[in-house]
């Protein structure tokens, strides 16, 4: 099996660095470009997890960054830019998902399996992914969103807390407890 990254990189820019960048991005195209490049992939991935296809995801990613560009002047320099950005992305994702699937609960948001080239590994991985899909199916939407923000978008706990209106410690505990529950069921299954 090929090696996997076991945790998303948390060592990004410091809050001070980012605050300067955000402030500069209001008037400096180069700063905005740097900010955009830093976040476009996590936002895209996060939205893809909601929408499940690249056409809709690209459309929504455009909308998110347009709103960010227009809202930068009013953005209050407190807390994390990523939290603000993903609050917008989350709101748009939920609205788009509802527009497209008015009769489906949010819990049915699409899942995307990983890829592998080894045929034998495909079979094993397929079984494991099915087991994981079954575990996800038992989660409620709030729990799925925690995992999306943490492991798909790669956000830090403080940022997730800001988006969901909870403290960093509470998010940390919630993610840990969720993983523990899932792991217990994983072992049983």
């Amino acid at each position, binding site marked *: 099996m090929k090696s996997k990254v076991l945790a998303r990189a948390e060592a990004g820019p410091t809050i001070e660095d980012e605050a300067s960048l955000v402030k500069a991005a209001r008037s400096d195209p180069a700063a905005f470009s740097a900010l955009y490049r830093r976040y476009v992939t996590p936002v895209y991935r996060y939205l893809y997890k909601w929408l499940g296809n690249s056409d809709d995801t*690209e459309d929504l990613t455009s909308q998110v*960054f347009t709103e960010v560009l227009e809202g930068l002047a009013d953005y209050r320099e407190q*807390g994390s830019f990523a939290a603000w950005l993903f609050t917008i992305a989350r709101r748009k994702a939920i609205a788009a998902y509802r527009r497209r699937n*008015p*009769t489906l609960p*949010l819990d049915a948001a699409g899942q995307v399996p990983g890829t592998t080239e080894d045929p034998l590994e495909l079979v094993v991985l397929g079984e494991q992914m099915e087991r994981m899909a079954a575990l996800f199916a038992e989660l409620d939407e709030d729990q799925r969103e925690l995992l999306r923000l943490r*492991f798909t978008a790669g956000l830090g706990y403080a940022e997730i807390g800001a988006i969901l209106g909870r*403290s960093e*410690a509470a998010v940390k505990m919630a993610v840990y407890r969720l993983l523990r529950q*899932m792991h217990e069921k994983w072992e049983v299954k």
Partner: protein
Amino acid sequence: MMDEQFISEFPKEFSETLLDFCEAPAPRPDFITGLEGQLLDRQPVLIAAERSRQTGIQNRWVRFSALFARRGWQYAALVLLAALTIALFAIGPQRVLAQVQRWLGYVPGIGFVNLAETQVLASPIETTREGITLRVEQVIAGPENTQVLISSPGLSEKDLPWPNKALENPDFSAFLVLPDGSRMEMKKWELSIGTGKLEFPALPTGVHQVTLVVRGLPLVPPGVLPENWEIQLSLRPASGELNQALFPQPYSPQDASDSHHGITLRVLDVAQTPERTALHYQVEWADPDWEFRFGLGSARLPELRDDLGHIYWQSPGASNSSVAVVAIPKSKDSQAAPTPFPTSSDGTIVFPALSLSASQGTLWVDALEFQVPVEGSFTLDLGKNPQIGEALALDANLEVAGFPVHLHGTRLRQETVNMGDGSNERDASIVRTVLEFSMDPPAERDGFSLNRFSFTNGKQTIYGSAGMSFSNGEKVYRGQLEFTTGKVPAGKIELELIEASLLAQGPWEASWTIPGRDSSKAALPVQLFPQAAATNKPAGELRPVVEEAFLSDRLTAIKLNAVGLPPGASFVQALPYDPIYFDPNHRKVDLYLQDNWGRRYDPGRNEAFIRPEGEEAGLNPGWMFFPPLQPLAQNLTLHVPGMEVFKPGEASFDIQVPPDLTFKPQETTVTVIGGGGPERQITETMWVSDLWPVDISLDLAGYPLHFTQARIERDEQSDTPYTLQLNSDPFAVDQGELHLIGLRFAKVDMPDGKTIQIDPALENNGMISFPYGGVGPLEPGSSQVQAGVGLGVTTADGADLLSGSYHVELNGVTEWVPGPWELSFSLSGN
């Protein structure tokens, strides 16, 4: 801090699959570049527009600041005033109100709702089958969700078989069918017997008609009542006139706020209906790292008060609405730029209806709780070979959220916890291995106190929390550490703080003027002081008298006292029956009020009360509360079957509680009244020690008592599980005559050196559980009775039996004085 990368602690197979599952593809490189170009093309236009806006603001501000050289807070007030003035001149004051209120409705059962872009039912719709009715009370179909309130009028828990399987497994099912035949599944629901609040996703644009399909009525077991209900719902866009006709119109009080320690409590909106008063409140604080713990108040319930002295507690019947999601219109700007860290939280709380004569309302809250971030760790040494039942020498000092904390007095134990209820109780018990300890009460600082905090070890196999809790009406500080694997490690364990909550001490009192009320024309409460209450007993005899009456549109309050009392004795309360001969199967209440038209008013049916003595806590049992009188009442008669009086006396005794007692289970049958079902008998297991003989003779207020037996009871579900029981030799009482019913205690000296002083005011209110002393018949209805004493004998940390010598002092008895009496008085004051 806890390991940020803790997913690596799980087996690789699990963590890799999880990350694979959460993986999503990266965007195409040409998409990234293309979007970047579009955004950068747009940026200069936005920058130019923003500079123009900023210049305009700055110019205006320069003029303002040149005219008014003021301090910072005055600038802020000036800006707010200017903004308000501009708004008023632009659209007129009446229209400001209309703009705000047009889309804000209060929907009983749901809460304050933003009715913009919302469809509603113009009137309730119902259908009846086999004599059973299902009614859709209201539908609020908004941009966020579709909420449906259903009810089955007339259906009560008494109509259903019991135990109610549907209550234990509420597999309630309902869905909406759209015009194109597609189904919309329910997202969540709240059910009680006969009512339900169902939430579905938002309806697609253009859908005005849906069919609600309900498989079974809320909490009705399958096969009992008609099933598969279908009701067609025609929705109409919410509009100003329709809203006014359907929903009580809330108002926004001016300056209804109170601030302490940088925390503000505001009442944003008020909806008053004939049945209830709903408040939309907001709590605002400064620190973005803090999180408000939803729910107002700590040691005491939040209160709604009015200027007439009425006090209202949160309506139990409206509890569903008190947790309703509140949706208040927000401006487009605020949606475009959400505050990254919210520093305010709002909610809805529902009280009974305010008095029609009240011109001012006040929301009173004793404290507010916040979760705050914590960092740090501390070490506990469990020794080389920790054993269950062992007391460990712990003396740990740490700092939590700036508060010094001292932990001590540790004991390792296993406990059995019931996780279920009803018939599941026995199947759902689990055994937990826990370390219990005591904690010194943390000092209050700048209006804040440490409420609770939690911690874990690095591998997250040990969790603990400590802080304040209430036991027997008193604050206690203790903590518990749970070993989730059941295994207790030897040696030192490092524990990391996870989170803490602080209590901000108030009280907060947010007051407002109720619009449209003219206090000069209001019907004010009437206070009467009947000087010579007429009774059917001759004067000079020991008897109750009506000392004072308070009559309003929300309640009737009567204060009783007694005349003919012996020296030192005092009136306690009127009683509906002789407590020795209380029969739970025959609870006819003969203590009631009656007017001259024969209308009866039962005590305790009032929705408001008063604190006429100015007491902040507790209730004086001498005051009785009844519903408000009918307007035509001219005379009142209070029917009093008997009363309790206190008679002073002095006595004391010492009792030795032995260590190393063994306990055996004893099953008892308990009658459960309320709690989600009709009255029923359940079997409970109490752990008891063997009886041991004692010889305690007392002469208390003229009553000779001889206690001969003692034993300890252990109740695993209690915070103070160990109770000493003393039983006396039997003695005879005459049911129709004055006799002993209770023992009153002054203080208890405990073996650990502590002394418990008994506050007689609290004892009168029944707020002290231990010690207690009473009298009961040997057999139901028998005139042979036995005195008993219950004394709490649990260690301070709540973990174990506190053995040793107890010194108990008593200061009197209470007696049953049989009536009946009929106390009549005129409402004209004569």
